[in-house]
């Protein structure tokens, strides 16, 4: 049997304790910044796989013209959107 000295045993216990401690207890929870939240929304929304969608395109200023509007469904790789414009 190999012997582990006290100093090394202390180091080993420290490392084991660190490994077994959930990171959330060691590291303060970080608040997602607005930029991170917006960037992450792309993958989070795509992970939802499907959704209904409404869209509208037009000019903001006069003459206010609605060029296209529609609604449909989307699976984020293909979508069926009946609309008119």
């Amino acid at each position, binding site marked *: 049997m190999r012997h582990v000295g006290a100093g090394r045993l202390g180091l080993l216990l420290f490392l084991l304790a660190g490994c077994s401690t959930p990171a959330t207890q060691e590291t303060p929870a970080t608040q997602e*910044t*607005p*930029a991170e*939240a*917006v*960037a*992450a*929304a*792309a993958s*989070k*929304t*795509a992970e*939802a*796989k*499907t*959704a*209904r*969608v*409404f*869209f*509208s*395109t*037009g*000019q*903001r*200023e*006069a*003459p206010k013209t609605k*060029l*296209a509007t*529609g609604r*449909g*469904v*989307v*699976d*984020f*790789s*293909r*979508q*069926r*959107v*009946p*609309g*008119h*414009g």
Partner: protein
Amino acid sequence: MANSGPPGRADLSGPVELLVDGRATYIKAPAGMPAPTPWFSISLEGGGGQSPLSDLPQIGSDPAAGLAYLRGVSDDVEEIGSDQVRGVATTHYRAVVNIGEVLAEAPPRDRDQLRHGLRMLGLEQLPMDVWLDAEGLLRRQVTAIDLSQSEFFADPGRPAAAQELVTTVEFYDFGTEVDITPPPADQVTKLEDMLNR
């Protein structure tokens, strides 16, 4: 769909059914349109001048394409406040999209076409408002494209403010059942072929 116009004239004021499947867009022929098949298609394949239609910017034809813009936001995103979108509590953010970042994140096969379309629109940055729910899902996205900066679409005779094109996209009922099947090939005519007839 009823067609109140003269026989043989397409009723372009009514609803148009549009299906986007990857790089192909299918449009159901409006009532009265003298189309050889119920659907016609526009493909992004063969861009770079091989097809005049494939050179058109595809921005706006794909409501889900706006998700790509989210990955290109600059660091100075502003939190505007709380808001309701279709009865769902959301947080409203205002951001500027760095088009260079969007291009860098785009799949390589789409990059040239996207770059070409954005160049036609004269876009380098894009102001964008987004509303995210508590789970971080995109509920509403509003983008404003200033066409007065486009060498292709600018109208020097009109004030810049009147050339701002605003697009609103809202997503809701996430997880809803979706059945999307592109029309069979024998029901589709390429738009280029129709124009050459």
